[in-house]
């Protein structure tokens, strides 16, 4: 399966996950413990776990979750450095890999290209809106993309 940013993953969730992993669990725990400690259900937990893992902030395998060096660096950094880290990490996963390749695009063009790449994540009924929010949440926030009236461009 292609690595993607989950439509439900948010920056705040990433900060929360990494913070909890680093400060409360000393960097390594079982996912079920994390779930219990944070009083969240899998709908809340898994999108950010998958996404953080795809971005290389944690490694999640066989029910364990371990924070990586990059994850630790993220927690300790200021806002500028955090954005840099995310920006670099995004380039390797969808929908941003395709976005970077296109350079300048609107939502429909990106959706079409993603389909050609075999990325089905954003084909749901709310896919269009999901994609827009994800591009803004991760791409615009980290400074990888900018948005104007015509669509998105890579900075």
């Amino acid at each position, binding site marked *: 399966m292609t690595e993607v940013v989950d439509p439900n993953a948010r920056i705040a969730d990433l900060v929360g996950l990494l913070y909890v992993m680093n400060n409360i669990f000393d960097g390594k725990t079982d996912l079920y413990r994390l779930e219990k400690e944070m009083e969240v259900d899998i709908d*809340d937990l898994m999108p950010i776990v998958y996404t953080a893992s795809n971005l290389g902030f944690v490694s999640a395998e066989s029910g364990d979750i371990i924070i990586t060096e990059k994850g630790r660096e993220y927690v300790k950094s200021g806002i500028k450095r955090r954005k840099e880290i995310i920006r670099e990490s995004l380039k390797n996963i969808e929908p941003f890999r395709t976005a970077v390749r296109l350079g300048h695009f609107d939502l429909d063009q990106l959706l079409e290209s993603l389909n050609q790449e075999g990325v089905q994540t954003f084909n749901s009924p709310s896919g269009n809106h999901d994609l827009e929010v994800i591009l*803004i949440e991760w791409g615009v926030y980290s400074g990888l993309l900018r948005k104007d009236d015509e669509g998105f461009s890579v900075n």
Partner: protein
Amino acid sequence: MDEDLIKDNAMQRARAAQYVLSAVGIDFSYENGYKVFEDVNIDVGQNEFVAIVGPSGIGKSTLLRILGGFLKPDKGAVYLFGKQIKRPTPDIILIHQSIVTFPWLTALENVMLSLKVRNVSDEEAEKAARNALETVGLQGFEDLYPKEMSGGMRQRVAIARALAASPLVFLMDEPFAHLDELTAEGLRQDIYNILFSPDTPLKGVVLVSHNLTEVVELADEIYVLNNVPATVVGKVHVDLPRPRNPRSEEFNQILDALYNYLTPPKVRKI
């Protein structure tokens, strides 16, 4: 009698002037006559983070609105650096429980709402609004509408709008109550980094919350409200270094102290 009262008030003011925000002897009843508060006193010192906790229905949000001048107390007064607060002011900004943005305004325009009331030129207002957005990490979002953003990003817009008013005090009404713990944790970290950053004009923060762990994690001073009508039944000073680990022994001792105040010993009737 009158002279005494004037002297009292003058003394109150002199005492209140030492604090950023000071509520003295607050009584308040709802319109239907139900008495909510009796003689509530709260002080916020320089650069202090104050939390107010209490069982649900005790009137925490109401108290916050009295502190902000949205509601008039029946008795007592609220002072900001010794000056009595009689109506809402941009010096004291209320942050709502739900995230409030205006969907017909872009992020930049949302933030500029706070600036135009200060009679600055449009250019300056725009510059200040861009700065505020940058403080909360939203450069690049200037021309986006709230609808295109996630809840977390909207929260940042709301915070930027609040900061742009250059307030001295933030009043926060359970800002994370609706969020799942993971998201809340993330926003908390972000927002408190912003609040404690040297760029802000803030001199004090008041948070009401029913999440005791959250409160112990953040506050310097915790007021516990209880009884009907509510009064301050206890005050706990938290002197732990940040970031605070909710699993540590000291942390749990403070939690225990808070619960002690919330459940006073039973007085046996004879």
